[in-house]
């Protein structure tokens, strides 16, 4: 198939932070399918490692390297040091996808200081640390780079019980814009993928709540998105040939959810 010119990542080195969640795993698989070696970062040394290992097996079956790491994304220093190691192990770095996502649903009055700190620490800080570190690595190599931040449509709309989570993702949205402007001169592109209601997010809805069932019908496409529908956009946004003129944008993968009034 003559697509390789635009979407071929053969020989490229990718880092996926949060490869243990469905979006990160799908992006890692898609990168590998397009030809890249992919370093997989699980966020915690528990069953997350097993989930990343499943991704590793798939990628190795495609004939690519997929070393696993544990990265504590709440600590900027850990993101930096682990990334440094990964760049050495892979022999370079061309793209970084950042997918940590820890949901919190709580009314604002019961959202504690700790809830807020933790929500920012797990939904926004990792993205910031990853961009800071990736920029450093790309500039060190003096090569173009691609950064893809996975975020949520809640970063641009409000829904009750999501004040902390939506604010954290709003911060990611504007991180995309500000970082894109700061790094554009070095051909480092920063873009976002805003997820709508995906098929792995059912635990965010209360099965006893009739409004939650109606929420599914708010999407123009009337169905939840699947992990495989996230990967191709990440490949597009990470291809040096395809996106030399695309930066600072957040693209929804939401089945038309944002169209609703």
């Amino acid at each position: 198939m003559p697509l390789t010119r635009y979407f071929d990542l053969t020989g490229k080195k990718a880092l996926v932070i949060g490869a243990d969640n469905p979006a990160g795993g799908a992006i890692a698989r898609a990168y590998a399918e397009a030809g890249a070696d992919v370093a997989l970062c699980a966020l915690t040394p528990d069953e997350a490692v097993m989930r990343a290992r499943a991704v590793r097996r798939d990628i190795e079956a495609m004939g690519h390297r997929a070393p696993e790491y544990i990265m504590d994304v709440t600590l900027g220093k850990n993101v930096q040091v682990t990334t440094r190691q990964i760049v050495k192990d892979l022999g370079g770095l061309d793209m970084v996808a950042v997918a940590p996502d820890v949901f919190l649903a709580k009314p604002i009055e019961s959202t504690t200081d700790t809830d807020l700190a933790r929500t920012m620490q797990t939904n926004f800080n990792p993205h910031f640390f990853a961009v800071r570190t990736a920029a450093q690595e790309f500039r060190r190599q003096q090569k173009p780079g691609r950064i893809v931040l996975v975020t949520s449509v809640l970063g641009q709309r409000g829904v009750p019980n999501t004040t902390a989570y939506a604010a954290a993702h709003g911060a990611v949205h504007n991180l995309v814009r500000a970082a894109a402007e700061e790094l554009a001169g070095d051909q480092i592109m920063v873009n976002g993928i805003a997820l709508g209601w995906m098929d792995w997010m059912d635990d965010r809805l209360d099965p006893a709540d009739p409004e939650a069932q109606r929420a599914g019908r708010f999407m123009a496409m009337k169905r939840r998105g699947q992990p495989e529908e996230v990967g191709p956009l990440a490949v597009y946004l990470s291809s040096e040939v395809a996106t030399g003129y695309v930066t600072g944008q957040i693209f929804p993968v939401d089945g038309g959810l944002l169209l609703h009034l």
Partner: protein
Amino acid sequence: MIERFDLDGKAIVVTGGGRGLGRGMAMALAEAGAQVLIASRTEEQLAGVTEEIRAAGGKADYFVFDATKSADVDALVQDCVLRYGQIDVMFANAGGGQGPDLEFWEFPDDGFQATMEQNLHSVFYAARAASAQMMKQGTPGVVVPTASGSALRGRLPFAYPTAKGGVLSLTRSMAMTLAAHNIRVNTIVPGYVSQRPPKDAQEQAVREQRGSFVPVKRLGEWWELGPLAIFLASEASSYITGAQFIIDGGGLAAGLGPVGFRPRHEV
């Protein structure tokens, strides 16, 4: 995953395909395996692009039409069906024209009307004809209008951005309406993109100067719309509808100061 980008055998219409961004998109779509029917007013340009695509091993045909005449647009879609058996994707890309170079308070009715017809009516006609046919076929489809970054900011002359703003709004409503029929609608929103290679060194110098105002320090090139066109036309974007795909070198994410402006940082 990668097969999601495949357009093998898809029947795709690109209006305004004789030059510029439309030509760039048509060439990439053909490269990805589509049968491409390009359409515009200028037969000479269409014949040239068709020849170029065929010479590269792609499948292309052309149709001469006026994008502002709905009967012409209907005939275009029927021509696509006659040639390829159906229509899968419509790139409603034809547009252009700013109206006369006059102050806002002097701007004439006919100048405003013509700009709307070229840039907004043309998209409505193309999307309507294509979606009606897709529904008749009972097959999934894709409609991709071309808008403009100018629609998202204030700019003079005003008529063109106004019409393109209409395209963005039309896209959202169409996406909402057509989703139930498995037709996705997404807009391509180009910023400053060169329509063709520079003619001479002087033109190149002008482009470089203009490019210095774009965050990535250059203008986009016509062919850079190609990969985006493939992404939006294909299953690679299967869960995306009603969205704006901005391709502008970072211009629209910025704009609060000249490129190179940075608030003073502490040493």
